[in-house]
């Protein structure tokens, strides 16, 4: 199908008002917002703790201090959040397909 035909057919003001789209955006934001706040907090807590306290200078395992454990945890956090995002995004993909089927390709 040609771009021109589609551009004429789609009423974006209408499609973003549909229940399906509104609910998709709402769920997407409700999913991402807490994670984004969380990872920024975890990340910037590191320099705050190392700069203003000596908590992380305590030895954790042998001479590996909590500074290192905290940093490794950030690595683990990145990998875990990446996987969580992937799984959740697959759900959203299904919703997107339905929206296209219902409101665009009629």
């Amino acid at each position, binding site marked *: *199908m040609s*771009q021109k035909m*589609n*551009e004429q057919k*789609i009423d*974006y*003001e209408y*499609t*973003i008002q549909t229940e399906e*789209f509104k609910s*998709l*955006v709402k769920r*997407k934001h409700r999913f*991402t917002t807490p*994670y*984004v706040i969380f*990872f*920024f907090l975890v*990340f*910037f807590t*590191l*320099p*705050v703790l*190392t*700069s*203003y306290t000596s908590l*992380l*200078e305590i030895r954790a*395992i*042998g*001479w*590996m*201090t909590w*500074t*290192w454990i905290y*940093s*490794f945890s*950030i*690595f683990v956090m*990145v*990998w875990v*959040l*990446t*996987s969580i*995002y*992937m799984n959740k*995004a697959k759900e959203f*993909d299904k919703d*997107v397909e339905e*929206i*296209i089927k219902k409101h*665009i*390709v009629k």
Partner: protein
Amino acid sequence: MSFISIIIFVGVIGLTLAITYWAAKQTTTASDFYTAGGSLTGWQNGMAIAGDYLSAASFLGIAGAISLNGFDGFYYSVGWLTAYLVVLFLIAEPLRNLGKFTMADMIGARFHARKIRGAAALNTITIVLFYMLAQLVGAGALIKLLFGIDYWLSVLIVGFMMTIYVLFGGMTATSWVQIVKAILLMAGTIIISFLVLLKFNFNFIGMFDAMRTATPHGEAFLHSGVVYKDPIGLISVLIALVLGTAGLPHILMRFFTVKDAKTARSSVVYAVWIIGLFYVLTIFLGFGAAKFVGADAIVAENAAGNMAAPMLAGILGGDALESFVAAVAFATILAVVAGLVLSGASAIAHDLYGEIIKKGKVTEKQQVNAARIAALSVAVISILLALGAEKMNVAFLVSLAFCIAASANVPTILFTIYWKRFNTTGAVASMLVGLFTALILVAVSPNVINPVEGAAFFVGNPIFPLENPAIISVPAGFLAAIIGTLVSSRAKDEISYAEVKFKAEVGFKELES
């Protein structure tokens, strides 16, 4: 130069030229040139992102920084990895859904004004030049140290190679050079890390114990604070690291090389695993160099510690491994500068020439020719700049590029996708205020004006105290976007947010053609 180093170097150069020859045959349209026709798979683009991202600053720079400063060097690893969460959660998919070839396309999907594209192109070119200067200066120093070739000749060799890749092979050659480089870099890093662990009898915890007495810093080596004594300075650097990636034009451009948002997403996941593994291994590179090469020897070779990794390889694996690692470092730099040339060329040929001067009325052939001429110009200008910049600090140039990306690009990218009220004035204000705040503050920072003679361009007391101005310039970029938007009204030629939001979320572009 030993026989084995010649073989390895000729091998790397030969392989990348073969890739370019193969890629050149399939590069005919503008879309081929800029985005490899959007034909890359998730893992291919994931490897290429890693190859594009892990620059000399990551490989040579972090290894050196950890070996000399302990944990403070590792902040770079943590920040540059976490940055990918910002990319994945907020930017990758909408960017892919809205853009075509460049970052400016994505902003242009909502704001048609030519000044928007102009500002975005200006930011791209500025970031590319600083980033490229860092890589070329690093490459020049590396080759000079390894082979005793003059600095200027080293820069010319690297400059010549990157120009060939981009000019003839476009994005296809660039992507595959980056993929090959990612494999070589990971192989080299894993081998060195294995040998370091072997020396420590595979006792990971014991390694930390050994480091306590291995360096002049003593126990402080294992804590934060060897370099970053000022908390605000540290937080400022980390802001630039964690937000900058999401505004780097050569990284953002990679998301247009895949067919849809799903693939863009999966490529970030591959990239995050490869990049994360690499950054974990920087501990072995850094600790190993500190323990087995020694701070004195590292500094004697290069004050910033940039030669720590190749020197460590030489001690652990002899000439063969040192040559291999040097070749890896060479390939690392080539892959990154090729990506930079391409994104700089896209800003000039596609945004400035194609969209602003020609208003989008260009034929396929004109586009490809313009892209090639622009690539050549970007290459020549950056080679000329690099020839005069031998004494500049590589880490400073890279962190400046990240700071500009975070301040000048990220606010506009985020608001274009997520803020309904955002408008043309806000976008232009944000891009320019972010760019110039960062540039001006750096110009009056200790990087440029320093009381220690020889440490910077001018001797004196810096007007701005921080090395990296992100803590001021990033909020300035966001504030300018908000204030600019609130004091003005919507421009007539803006696309409705409804349409932008729908396309960003749904990726409707795939159905259109």
